[in-house]
């Protein structure tokens, strides 16, 4: 009976996944949040003390999202002040160690390049309303978008903040109207689909960027993610990315590669989203020598290394290579796209787009493993690099066995031929989105788009653009598999295993001293040969002796 129920659930789930998948594609790039029947677990914040359908202020017709925000802030009086501190609003992060100015507001990534100057399009994923240029007022709390995270109807969506080229804006036409009153009354703690609206679609599509964050996590089976599985713990993102005054634990810009504190005392540790903050520093229950050894391994291995055997699982592919060099081809003067990859859940992915170039997709990927100390160093817009030293690392990191903060982490490497200023040896801000005749998306003139983008940002540009091969590294941390699917010892403790070539450690099963083994084998075989020779001579001698006696 349980088996039958389980299968029925799987079929239902598969159906639901396909349905949401189809929805996601048809309404790309900002698919609405999909309602889930039961509440997800949001960590300590659960239950709730208010029913938003009973608030008089929400029983009105709202003309704009900002009107809803004003209503929200009339009760949640301090939230605006809190919210303005967080990265979803500022899109800025100054690394306290390196001093680098990071955040979407500044960085160039090797997917859609830069948000800077393209806010009209990219700031759809800004948790605010109307950021389309430098004139956006970050002190105006009414511009905060509460609903994108807190909507529970699944009907809320956003469109670009500026029109863009007609060639692109056509994608966002014909959306159904939203009932903001109903949406405002539905608000609750964010669920996976809320966060996923943006975080599953980073890089311009489902799972394009991270590899471990895809729409498959909206309603994942336990086998895809043991924490988020709807047939398991059903965690919302905030169960781990715990929140305090609208600041979230867990940062890609500053990563705790090795948590030395563990769970902390009750009520503490609201600052990290590490595995150890729940599972402790000795996460494996010690009931065998093997589990004892596994706990030892936590000193050198990130939990993710063994517990995420592959990324881009669950039927949604991730992008591994992007080639901007081929962008700009047109048919009859118009941009086009080509399907070329069918992913596990049956959906087709574009492998060429005139506005972006060629892509390679892949799924169920074995990560790259490297020592990592948690410190990412970025090639920012003002970083000079040697054009002859390619690939250029968009973000690079260090780490080694001797460093106590380092552990071996899994990464998704992303390789992209990216437009760059080859004269000055810098990255560029490309003007992709705009209504003018310089925006790349619609006009397909890269030189013009770069010149425009750099001028707009007030940055030096040699006028000589080209393409450089770049690589970026994405730490893999989601899609934690159930423990029975974790890697076994041989995955690394073998010749040609996953840690082949990784330096700084002695790995039994992988590492041998060739001379020692050679001498050892010669000694053993030599002994056997001497024994056989000895025995042979003895036998012959005794035979001769017997003949002599007769």
């Amino acid at each position: 009976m349980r088996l039958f129920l389980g299968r029925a659930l799987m079929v239902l789930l598969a159906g639901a996944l396909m349905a949401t998948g189809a929805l996601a594609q048809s309404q790309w790039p900002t698919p609405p949040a999909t309602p889930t029947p039961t509440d997800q677990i949001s960590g300590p914040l659960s239950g709730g003390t208010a029913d938003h359908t009973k608030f008089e202020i929400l029983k009105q017709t709202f003309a704009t999202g900002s009107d809803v925000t004003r209503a929200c802030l009339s009760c949640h009086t301090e939230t605006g002040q809190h919210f303005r501190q967080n990265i979803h609003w500022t899109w800025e992060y100054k690394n306290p160690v390196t001093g680098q100015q990071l955040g979407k507001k500044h960085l160039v990534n090797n997917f859609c390049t830069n948000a800077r100057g393209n806010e009209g399009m990219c700031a759809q994923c800004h948790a605010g309303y109307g950021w389309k240029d430098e004139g956006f007022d970050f002190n105006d709390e009414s511009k905060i978008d509460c609903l994108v995270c807190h909507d529970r109807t699944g009907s809320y969506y956003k469109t670009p903040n500026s029109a863009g080229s007609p060639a692109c804006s056509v994608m966002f036409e014909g959306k159904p109207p939203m009932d903001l009153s109903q949406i405002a009354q539905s608000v609750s703690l964010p669920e996976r689909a809320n966060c996923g609206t943006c975080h599953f679609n980073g890089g311009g599509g489902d799972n394009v960027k991270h590899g471990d964050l895809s729409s498959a996590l909206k309603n994942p089976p336990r086998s895809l993610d043991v924490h988020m599985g709807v047939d398991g713990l059903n965690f919302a993102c905030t169960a781990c990315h715990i929140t305090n005054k609208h600041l979230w634990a867990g940062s890609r810009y500053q990563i705790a590669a090795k948590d030395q504190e563990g769970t902390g005392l009750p009520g503490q540790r609201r600052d990290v989203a590490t595995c150890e903050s729940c599972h402790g520093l000795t996460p494996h229950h010690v009931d065998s020598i093997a589990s004892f050894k596994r706990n030892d391994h936590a000193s050198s291995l990130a939990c993710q290394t063994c517990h995420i055997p592959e990324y881009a699982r669950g039927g949604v592919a991730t992008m591994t290579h992007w080639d901007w060099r081929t962008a700009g081809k047109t048919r009859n003067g118009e941009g086009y796209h080509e399907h070329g990859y069918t992913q596990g859940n049956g959906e087709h992915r574009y492998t060429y787009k005139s506005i972006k170039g060629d892509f390679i997709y892949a799924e169920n990927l074995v990560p790259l493993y490297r020592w990592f100390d948690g410190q990412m160093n970025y090639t920012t817009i003002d970083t000079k690099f040697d054009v002859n030293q390619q690939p250029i690392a968009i973000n690079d990191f260090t780490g080694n066995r001797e460093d106590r903060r380092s552990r071996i982490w899994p990464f998704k490497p992303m390789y992209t031929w990216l437009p760059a200023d080859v004269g000055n040896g810098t990255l560029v801000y490309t003007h992709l989105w705009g209504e003018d005749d310089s925006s790349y998306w619609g006009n397909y003139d890269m030189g013009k788009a770069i010149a425009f983008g750099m001028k707009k940002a007030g940055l030096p540009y040699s006028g000589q653009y080209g393409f450089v091969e770049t690589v970026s590294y994405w730490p893999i941390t989601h899609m934690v598999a159930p423990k029975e699917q974790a890697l076994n010892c041989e995955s690394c403790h073998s010749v040609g295993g996953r840690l082949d070539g990784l330096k700084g450690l002695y790995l039994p099963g992988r590492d041998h001293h060739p001379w020692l083994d050679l001498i050892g084998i010669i000694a053993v075989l030599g002994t056997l040969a001497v024994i056989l020779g000895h025995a042979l001579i003895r036998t012959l001698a005794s035979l001769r002796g017997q003949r002599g006696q007769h």
Partner: protein
Amino acid sequence: MAIRHVKIFSLFERFWHWAQMALIMVLLFSGFGLHGFHHLISFETAVTLHTLAALFLLLLWAFGTFWLFTTRSWRHFIPTLSGMWQVFHFYSLGIFKGEHHPYRKAYWRKHNPLQALAYLMLKIVLFPLIWITGLIYLFYFVWRDLPHASDWLTGLAYVHTGAAYAILVFVLVHVYMLTTGHSFKEHLMPMVNGFDDVDLTPEEEAYLLKDEPENIR
């Protein structure tokens, strides 16, 4: 002097020998599995077997060492050159001519000089080499944060592996030696029932017959 069938290996000594044999077999098998020479058992199983067998062997050795010193049996292993040449000559030449083994077991010298030296070297060189490196290796989690811990571990692992090859060589020679001289069975039985032919002095014979008649046949 009379050759008598005397119990020279006590029950504990025989248990020690055979338990040690079994544990060393498990250690060699699992150890070379961990080293990657075979994949007949999983790495996890090999680690478990190797660690458990090593800990049991250390316990056994603790008892064995205590036994050696409390029963004064350690004296069997005092190295001596007396008779060494004859034994060496026998294995390299005499054995092919059908000569008899030159050594007669004495009550307080149950091993021939070559044998005693070999066992002594095993006890004070090879075994310590492997168990000391093995224990330090096992406790890597305690000292892993010392500078260059990984390099030290590499060195330890090489010594440990080298000692393992040497012990395998010992095992091969040791087993082969059973076939020399008398029959394989005759060499084996003393370690099974404890009795072997021993050249007794009249005093020893008289003592055994009177005080320990169950130990002499």
